[in-house]
């Protein structure tokens, strides 16, 4: 039975196309997943906690080992390991993509929970005719339409006979493709772009409040922003630049040079400092989660 095409060299995590080994591995994966799911559901809290701690630790440990264990240098797809150490190194490298996929699969299952949350809130509001129920109706109709047209289009494109649909110029398109295109490219993408464009106006209103010279800090901010903004205005920069052009020293007072100096010597070091702090904080947080030292939300 042709289940999948083998696209990568054989590793611990895959098997040749149509082989018994492939079926056995799929079965083992499913069995472990189902056992874990129902086992955790049935387990009492005092058992569940150590299981979660162990799972968190083992999952984190994989990435620690992946990072610390010597990785193969310039490995080619058809390379075989030279010794046991390199064999383990290859195994870890091959496993990383699979472990990352496990995260994606779990996240994909949880999308159902997100949809349930949306349906519960908005269907309830629609049925009870609560305040702003019209918005909920629009959301539910939009969601349903996108699911129907998206799925219809997806199914048709799976058929190799419809491969010409992928090309440009609407060749071979049917009601489903036009419907999905209208909903996705015609409406959703444009609404996304409209939301993004609003940011420009919000920047203006936020900048107006931030740059009012009410304190020494706000005044420094105002002057700095003014220099940077003026340095980006071609006409002003041209006349200012012409007026200070000439002496080697006065070239430093060209608006572009002042703005570049501010960016390189004031802004960048400050951002680097913040970045260091955030990076170390993130590392400490990750460490606490990995070792289950963090008691999330559980302490008063």
């Amino acid at each position: 039975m042709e289940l999948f095409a083998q696209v990568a060299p054989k590793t611990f995590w895959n098997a040749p196309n149509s082989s018994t080994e492939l079926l056995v591995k799929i079965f083992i994966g499913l069995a472990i997943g189902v056992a874990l799911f129902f086992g955790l559901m049935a387990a009492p809290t005092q058992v569940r906690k150590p299981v979660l701690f162990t799972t968190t630790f083992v999952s984190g440990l994989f990435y620690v080992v992946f990072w610390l264990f010597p990785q193969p240098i310039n490995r080619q797809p058809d390379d075989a390991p030279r010794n046991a150490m390199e064999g383990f190194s290859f195994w870890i490298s091959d496993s990383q993509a699979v472990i990352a996929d496990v995260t994606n699969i779990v996240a994909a299952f949880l999308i159902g929970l997100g949809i349930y949350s949306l349906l519960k809130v908005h269907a309830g509001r629609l049925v009870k005719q609560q305040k702003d129920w019209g918005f909920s109706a629009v959301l539910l109709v939009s969601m349903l339409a996108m699911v129907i047209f998206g799925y219809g289009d997806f199914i048709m494109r799976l058929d190799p006979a419809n491969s010409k649909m992928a090309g440009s110029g609407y060749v071979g398109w049917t009601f489903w493709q036009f419907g999905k295109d209208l909903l996705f490219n015609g409406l959703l993408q444009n609404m996304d772009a409209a939301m993004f464009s609003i940011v420009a106006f919000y920047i203006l209103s936020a900048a107006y409040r931030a740059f009012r010279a009410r304190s020494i800090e706000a005044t420094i901010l105002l002057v700095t922003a003014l220099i940077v903004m003026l340095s980006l205005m071609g006409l002003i920069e041209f006349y200012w630049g012409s007026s200070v052009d000439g002496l080697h020293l006065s070239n430093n007072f060209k608006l572009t040079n002042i703005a570049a100096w501010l960016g390189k010597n004031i802004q960048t070091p400050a951002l680097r400092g913040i970045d260091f702090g955030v990076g170390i904080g993130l590392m400490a947080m990750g460490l606490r989660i990995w070792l289950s030292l963090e008691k999330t939300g559980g302490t008063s």
Partner: protein
Amino acid sequence: MGLQYHDNGWIGIVITLAMVAMILLNIFRAHGTGDLYIRRIAGLNSIDEAVGRATEMGRPVMMVPGISAPVNAKTMQAINIFAYVTRVCARFANPILVCCNDATVLTVCQEVIRDVYQQEGLQDLYDVDSVRFISDRQFAFAGGVAGLILREKAAATFLMGEWYAESLILAETANSVGAIQVASSTEVTQTPFFIAACDYVLIGDEFYAASAFLTRQPVLVGSLIGQDWCKLAIIGIVIVGVISNSIQLMGGSHHTVTQRWNEGKFEGLPKPSPFNAGDTTFSRWLNPDPAKDTKIERPKLPPDEMPQKSAGGGQ
């Protein structure tokens, strides 16, 4: 020798492990020490003020844990802070709204918020719909949350976690309804927007210090002190690097080199080349060679283990 240890790659690993050791050491130290001092963080002091104001106005407190997907350490930190905010809200019987961009974040938020209400003995006040999934598309999420802020007239908003272009849309919308705002972004590009639009902002690692400040758990306080040790170590490395590079770069354009570091060793140059910042010892230590030209002779896999194009496979 592995790829990450090639040339001077081991230096980065040693520095990281040393920082991990400093954090762990201080976590264990904090268990034995009494009350350790943490400086005041204005943004966190304002939480009680914001919730109090929301209670007086009878309007909800809105919390948004950024747009990370799936849940990660940044989201967990935001949720930790929200657990504290929820606890204060629960004590005042103040309604809350938590908006999630991702289903994994929704699940964790629901668990944590429900736990907080249970710990306070106020399960009856917990509304399952107070933690909502909005959308996993960035601007659909921004539009949805902005709409909720306007319709529910949130009295206080807490925007914390990983933010991108939607940060200002939410902050300005909340500002337009007069909400008191406490915000924090782990992205430095968004912090200025929050500073411009919000009342209080946790900058950089203050975000990660927040749970230690709020709960005073020894683990968190110790971790915070460990982070400070790490920062001191980095400051030390920067100072040593500045001095070392300055000394080596003295002489300007007259200073030339006849050999350059490549693949873990010095190689002669056809003609003298100007000595630049990349030639300094410190730069060499911190920028290991990527081993692009290193060739390793290995045996090859048997053909039956490679994908067969005839079976529809192959790259």
